[in-house]
Structures are given as C-alpha cells and as structure tokens.
C-alpha cells in the first residue's frame, strides 16, 4: 500500500487495464499530449500511442457516439468528458443508443464502454461546469452509475467498470482529484465489484447514507460528533446503479435514524430514491425518527465563492441535520 491521489488512481486503473486488453481504447478532449484537463491521463499517450489514446474534436456527442459505436463493434472504450455537465449534449447517444442496445437486440448486443466525467462544485467553475447530474443517468435503465469517494474506490471501481459489458457512467469528483489515500500496489488487481456499498465508518446512533464528495465531508462531521458522544455510521453507496439496497436497510435497522446527504439539487435528486429504499423495507419498523434528506439547494451553482460554498451541504448543515434527528 502507498498513498496516491484520486487522479493517479484513475490513471493507474486505465493504464493497467489497457496493458491487459489490447482492444481497450481511450478517447476524449485533450487527453493525449496535454494529459487531460485535470491531468488524469498524464503519460498514457506516451505509453499507448495515438491509436489507443485519441484526442477528439470538442463535441460530446461525437465522443459518446464514437465510444458507443466502437464498443458495439468489438472494441472496449473509455471516453472522457471534460465536465459531466456536457452529458446534456451526449444524452441521445448515451440514453437512446448505448443504454438501449442490449435490450433492442434481445441481450445479444453488448456496449462495454465507460464514460468518465467529473462533476461537482467547489472549483469556482460556475453554473455550467459544476453540476451533479447523477440522477439523470441513474434514471435510464441500461446505464450503470458509479461515483467513487476515495482513491482506492476510484481504482477498484473503474477497473470493474471497464471490465463490465454494459455502459457505465463513471462520475468523478473534481474536488477529490488531488486527495490522497492508500491504494494497493500496481498490478495487485484490486477490483471492487459494482453494487457493493461500503460502510466507511461504523456507528450506532445515526446513519448517513451518502456518496462521492459528501463521503469525506460526512466522515469529518462524524469525527467531530464523536467527541460529543454521538456515534455516526457513514455508508458510502459507491454505485447508484446497481444499488446495494441491503446495506442501506441493514444500517437503517441498526441505528433507526437516517440522514441522506448528496451535493446534487435536492428536488428529484437520487436521495429521494435512497429514502424510498429504506422506508419501503422492513427497516421502517426500526425507524425512530423521520428519514431526512440533505441535498443541494435548488439553484444553479453560483460563481461567487461564498455563495458556492453555501448551496451544497456543509459540515454545519450536516451536523445540524444529525442533531435534529437525535
């Protein structure tokens, strides 16, 4: 084990898989010589060459459509989108083509592609480069949706996503790219299967169900509250689709109090789905307080850095929400 960044972990996952599978290619804007807008693909152009690490025009529809087409016809593809906000431009290729192919051909079609796209606010990138749009893609049957919160999860989940025979939308967290964490040595093949949640912190008083950037934030709150004698369990769902319902239900039954936290706008957010999973299950009979959702405010992400910091769940808001449950 050594500590590397979230970005390096993603780079390692892609590079290791490309070494293993000569049919795996990587396309996107500025991923070649430039090394990617966030430097994620540094060194890959040099190692794998222009045939397998391919720069594309500035067209998200082209990137996604090429990836889907190449994957339908025998290659495996990793496509990078510079900002997940531009999934808007690629939605037809993603939702109507990539997601449907297997079903249209009676299960015989396969679209082994991963669409990597960074999301989230906090970098001063304003309303068109800061959104968290996971609920849009989670709503499309046929797409798997992954949001890792640590370098180790990023590496293990990306490898599993690349090996999956279905289109996977792999939503990275811009603000986590520089976060370091322990990751298995190169070549140790630490695969994390999709559909397995991870209890990042055990606790008995209240459960936070969350994912992505809100995981480290929730863990920080949990450590602070531990000093006050409040024992918070933090469950990182890691993959929205497929969702590890059992893990949520188990934790809800254990603590009887549930807070769902995500950065995305609260209305129509994936948190509503998570709440439903809990209250529809037999965990209902263990609930000792109304299940609470804490999402982002229903506004575009502001450019003003003070406002930007306040429209998403902050440590203070998470703390207050937990205390209100107890």
């Amino acid at each position, binding site marked *: 084990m050594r500590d590397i960044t979230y970005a390096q972990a993603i780079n390692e996952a892609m590079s290791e898989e490309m070494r293993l599978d000569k049919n795996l290619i990587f396309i996107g804007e500025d991923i070649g010589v430039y090394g990617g807008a966030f430097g994620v693909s540094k060194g890959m152009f040099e190692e794998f060459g222009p045939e397998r690490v391919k720069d594309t025009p500035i067209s998200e529809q082209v990137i996604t459509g090429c990836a889907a087409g190449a994957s339908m016809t025998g290659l495996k593809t990793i496509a990078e989108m510079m900002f997940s906000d531009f999934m808007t431009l690629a939605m037809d290729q993603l939702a109507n083509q990539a997601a449907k192919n297997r079903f249209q051909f009676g299960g015989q079609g396969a679209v082994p592609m991963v669409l990597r796209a960074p999301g989230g606010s906090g970098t001063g990138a304003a309303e068109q480069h800061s959104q968290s749009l996971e609920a849009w893609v989670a709503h499309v049957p046929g797409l798997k949706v992954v949001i890792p919160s640590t370098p180790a999860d990023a590496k293990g989940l990306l490898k599993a996503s690349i090996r999956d025979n279905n289109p996977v939308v792999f939503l990275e967290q811009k603000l986590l790219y520089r976060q370091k964490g322990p990751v298995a040595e190169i070549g140790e093949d630490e695969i994390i299967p999709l559909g397995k949640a991870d209890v990042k912190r055990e606790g008995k008083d209240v459960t936070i169900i969350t994912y992505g950037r809100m995981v480290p934030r929730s863990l920080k709150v949990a450590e602070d509250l531990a000093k006050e004698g409040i024992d918070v369990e933090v469950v990182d769902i890691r993959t929205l689709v497929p969702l590890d319902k059992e893990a949520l239900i188990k934790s809800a039954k254990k603590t*009887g109090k549930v807070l769902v936290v995500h950065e995305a706008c609260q209305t129509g957010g994936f948190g509503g789905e998570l709440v439903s999973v809990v209250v529809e299950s037999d965990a*209902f*009979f*263990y*609930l*000792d*307080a109304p299940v609470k959702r804490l999402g982002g405010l229903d506004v575009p992400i502001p450019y003003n850095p003070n406002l930007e910091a306040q429209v998403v769940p902050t440590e203070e808001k998470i703390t207050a929400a937990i205390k*209100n449950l107890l």
Partner: protein
Amino acid sequence: MAEKIIMPKTGMAMEEGVIIEWFIKEGDVVSQGDIVAEIETDKSSMELESDYDGTILKIVHPAGTTVPVVKVIAWIGEPGEEIPEEDEAEPKAEEASPAEAAPAAAAPAVPASAPKTAKADMIGDRVKATPAARRVAGEKNVNLADIEPSGKHGEVREADVMAAPAVTATPLAARVAADQDISLSEIAGSGHAGKIFKADLTALSGMSGAVDEAFVPNYQDELVDLTKIQQITGKRMLQSHTEIPVVTENAKADVTELLAMRKSLNESLDVKISINDFVLLATARMLRLNPRMNASLAGNNQLLYKGRINLGMAVATPKGLLVPVIKDADMYSITGISAAARELSVKGREGKLQMDEMEGGTFTVSNVGMFGVTSFTPIINQPEAGILGVCAVEDKLAMVDGEVVVRKEMGLSLTFDHRVVDGAEAAIAIKTVKDFLEAPLTILA
C-alpha cells in the same frame, strides 16, 4: 439499594404462606444462603434462604402472619439505608387487624406506579410514536400511552419504550385487559417478576376504595332492543316450550372410525367435511327409516307424515338464531350436504338468507359440540316432531381386545314431542343415528 425478601411461591397453586418462625431479627447481618425463616404452605414447610448479603433492615411481618406469595416480608441492605417508601407502605395495609387484613390480602393487584406527569401526544386516538417505538412496545407489551415521550415533536421514541418496565401477562389476562380497556402497565401482577394473571384484573375490578377509580372498569346496566329475529324466536320458544310435552333422550356414539374416514376423505378429495355434515346426513337417513320422527300433528286427531325430508340446521348469527333448511337432505352425498350446509350457514351469518331458505323444515339439528357441551335439551322447532342436539366429541377409554385404548365419543341429545313419538320409537331413532355414525360407511351407502 435495599433488597426485598419475599414470600416465595413454591408451587403453581400456592397463593399464600405462613411465617412460622424468624431465625433473624432486625439489625442482624446475614449472608447469601443463610436460613432466615421457616415458611409453611398448605402442603409443607420449608426454610427460606436469603438471596443477598447484608443487614436485616426491617421485618415486615412477624412470625405467625399469613402473607400472599411474592409479597415483601423483610428488607435487607446496608445499615441505615432507606427502605423504598412505596413498597414499605404496601405491606403495612396487610398488617392491620385480622378482620381488616382479609380483604386486602385477597386483593393482590394495586396500581404499579404513580400517575405519569407527561403523556405522549395523540394523533386522533393513536399515540404519536415512531415506528421503532411501536415495534418495541409491541414486543414488550407496553402501552405507548403510558410512556413519557422524549421526542422533539412530542413523540414516543424507541429509547422511551426501552426504559419502561416490561409488562408480562398471561394470554387470558391480556385478552381480558383488552376487552375491558385496562392498561396492563398499570397493574402489578401477582406472578413471578410481576406477571399479570386474570385474577389480578378481576381482583382489581372488585376492589373499591383500595384502587384508583380510573382503573376500575365501569360496569353499568344497559337496556338494548331485541332484534326482530330474537323477538320472533322468543315467542316461538315460549310457545314450543309450553305447548309440547317433551322428552329428551341422550346417547353416545363412538365416532373414532368416522373421524378417521373424515380425515381420509378430506385429504383425498381436498374438501372440508365437518363432523356435523356426517350428523346431518345420518339424521336425514334416519328420518327416511323412522318416518314418525319426520311427522307432525295435524289437529288433535291426525298425524301428517311428511314425504320430503327437509332438515333445518340451527345457525347462531349476530342478529340471533336462524334455522335455514336443507331441502331433501336425504338425497345428498356427503360432499353435497357439506357444501349445502356451508353455504346456508355463511349466508346466515352474513344475513343473506332468503325466506324460502328457512321454510319447509321437517326436523332440525342443533350442534353445540364445538363449545364442549356434553348434553342439552334443545327446544323443538314447531310443528316438527323432534330436534337432535349434537354434543362434543370426547376421549373415552375403552377395552379393545384386552387393551385399554382411547376412543372418540360424541354425545347426542334427541328431544321429541311425546304426542307424536313414543319413547321407544325415539330411542330407535337415536340408535339409528348412532349406528350410522359408528359405521360411517353406511351413511355413504
């Protein structure tokens, strides 16, 4: 904390014991296992050991006193320790003069706790409580309404229920409490660890003055209208009972084989034939063989032998007694009569019987066997000649091939109009039914 030494309950039937002798006095230091007293029950005497180490703080009852089981007879603890007030006060009432002590000793139940100060919010007639609190309350048999809520919105939470003492009660006591709207958590049970018995509840309702009025069920007289069916039934019952010289003959039928055959039929045909269905069919066959039982008086000088055998069956319904009629009952197969009887009784209970389904009866069968009745004198449904009462099936020891075996025996009570049928004829009739039931294949033949 001061601990109690209680009158032990050494057997299920033990209700009280006598303190023959104390071997210790107040202030003595005892160890766990030391003999502190000799207790006499109605069956034997025994030595009572201390369950605790400590100093005898108080002897509540002197030697010679009779004390109900599980009541405190002494306190043990640290020297100078306070004895809990509430518990100390309780046995004092029993220390009064013998005349006063008697009623108190006969009434073991008193409210367990002082009235609560804060109560849960209500949502309509439901206590405001979280799902977890409801689940735990159900498991502990605790009434949510008695629990002090700690929730921010006045709701009872899981921890509040956890903190409340568990209430254990016998199933019968729980049902009686539910029927009488008594909260079990307000009752101190006389059983082990406060388990509540039905006697605790009935004792409660019989005690005035000793118990908070709020805990005494409010029994009051009530005047209700008879249903139309009950009014008619009443008139007809009186008329039948006063006009007809009745005789009842009782017999027992060995139904061991019938029960086996019924089980086998039900399993192989996937039906639910009841014992009563066999009795109905056997009765119908009997009536064909004993036409006088299917007759009725026509004036003072004539007897009308009825051609059809239309069998009435008494059905208890929410509105009163109804007697739907299975027409041509002797023409049915066992499965057919079973289906017909079921349909009529369901209709009866649901109040959907048509008039023509209750007319034309020539004989009636009334079954109270399911309630364990072993013999009774049913009243004849005029102008019929008789009515067959069907009683409970009971185990009976019998000698078969020199071995004692268990047989199943069912009681039959035939009440008949002696103007129509003689005693011997009726005896033949009841024997015919008995023979059918004891050789059940003959019913089906």
